[in-house]
């Protein structure tokens, strides 16, 4: 089946079998390999992408269901070539990763949270990433990274202090 997808503000027309998950379509057809294949049945969250700004598991959605939505992958978050988003920066700075497998999904889940809630509490951060498994970090530095990014993004909108 032919399906037209809007991914990171670019239109792509792909030919897929109906049983192709959005995840496999992103990775195999469009070479957007930032969405990771973990369990592939909705448990681990490694495949998280944003659909109209909301975090969604791309392994639980078929590519043929995804037309007409604005899909954002980790590749669409950086402001320009060689640059990092505030969240990506914060993950580097607090070392919010070890093996990195869960990281793109963690950052996208956090991105969806901060877009709706500029000042999340620790509980809200934990809740936002509760569907994403990390087997390395113990989560503490991931939570720290998201709090740090939130603080910086809030700071961007304030006049410089004298």
């Amino acid at each position: 089946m032919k399906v037209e997808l809007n991914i990171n503000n670019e239109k792509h027309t792909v030919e897929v079998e109906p049983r192709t998950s959005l995840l496999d379509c992103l990775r195999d057809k469009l070479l957007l390999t930032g969405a990771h294949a973990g369990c592939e049945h909705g448990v681990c969250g490694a495949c998280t992408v944003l659909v109209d700004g909301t975090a969604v598991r791309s392994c639980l959605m078929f590519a043929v269901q995804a037309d007409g939505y604005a899909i954002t992958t980790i590749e669409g978050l950086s402001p320009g070539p060689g640059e990092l988003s505030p969240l990506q920066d914060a993950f580097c700075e607090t070392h919010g990763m070890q093996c990195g497998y869960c990281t793109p999904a963690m950052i996208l889940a956090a991105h969806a949270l901060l877009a709706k809630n500029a000042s999340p509490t620790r509980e809200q951060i934990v809740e936002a990433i509760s569907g994403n498994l990390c087997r390395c970090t113990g989560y503490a530095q991931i939570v720290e990274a998201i709090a740090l990014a939130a603080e910086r993004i809030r700071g961007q909108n304030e006049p410089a202090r004298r």
Partner: protein
Amino acid sequence: MKPAPFEYSRPADIDEACALLAADDGARLIAGGQTLVPLMAMRLARPSRLIDIARIPGLSYIREEFAVRPRESGDPGPQATPDRAGLDSRLRGNERGRGFDSNGTGSVVAIGATTKQHVVEHDPLVRSKLPLLAKVMPYVGHGATRARGTVGGSLANGDPAAEIVLVAATLGATLTWRDGGKSSEIAAADFFLGPMVTALPLTACLAEARFPVWSERRVGVGFHEVNARQSDFAFVAAAAQVALDADGCCTRAAIGIGAAAAVPLRLDTVATDLQGKRFDEAKVREAVKAALADVETMADLHASAEYRRRVAATLAVRAIADAFAAAARRA
């Protein structure tokens, strides 16, 4: 690519979806797919065709509808909105029809089958009119699955551990489906027949769930669940909604237990027992234990049948206590 191959259709309306279902024994409906797609990935489900109803217009809404006394024939009454104009709903007994109170008054919150769970979670009408549903929504899967999962999908799946199923049973929701160009409705109590087994005909598509609104001023709710993590399946869950009079005595109560038995349970004897009384923990515990004594509870790897019976009683008492306390805080 883990699922077996299938055909994919996206019908324009609900009757076309039913026709596609009727034409192919192996076809399945998909809306959010948050339960079905994992089953397909594990090849526990191998549908020959997926009929995608997620974007059918007019199936995603949350609105309050008010009861009207039966009118003279020909007058559709104010609740006949454009979406419903073509639906010749069959009433199950005049008084109880359409999900309103037994005396035919009050209002219901009608939720379209493909309304996404995260929409319900944040909806102000649900918060103010269906506090019990609002309370359980954060327990329904993860944020990422609530973003795709639908209310109708959860109900039609009929998992006794599902929180939306529990609330529908506890509050006595009415479910409407479409089949062969006709609409039918059924009480939640008659709809859930067993684990993942419902009264929904094979060729039917769930259209709407109607949750009765309690119009009393002092209404409170309570909900407790035991699980491995908040987003995981409940081992046992208990929900309670009570209304109190000015003196703090119960005028109405509804209590439900989820995940303990093959279907969600309503503890109606406990609810009747509470009438006219203030909260007395020892008496409530006794009544709950008696109500659960003969229930056949489920056993699995996570929890034995005896554990489920014991914890169901404890959680029910806590949920009732919370509901009394919450109602008492309302002036």
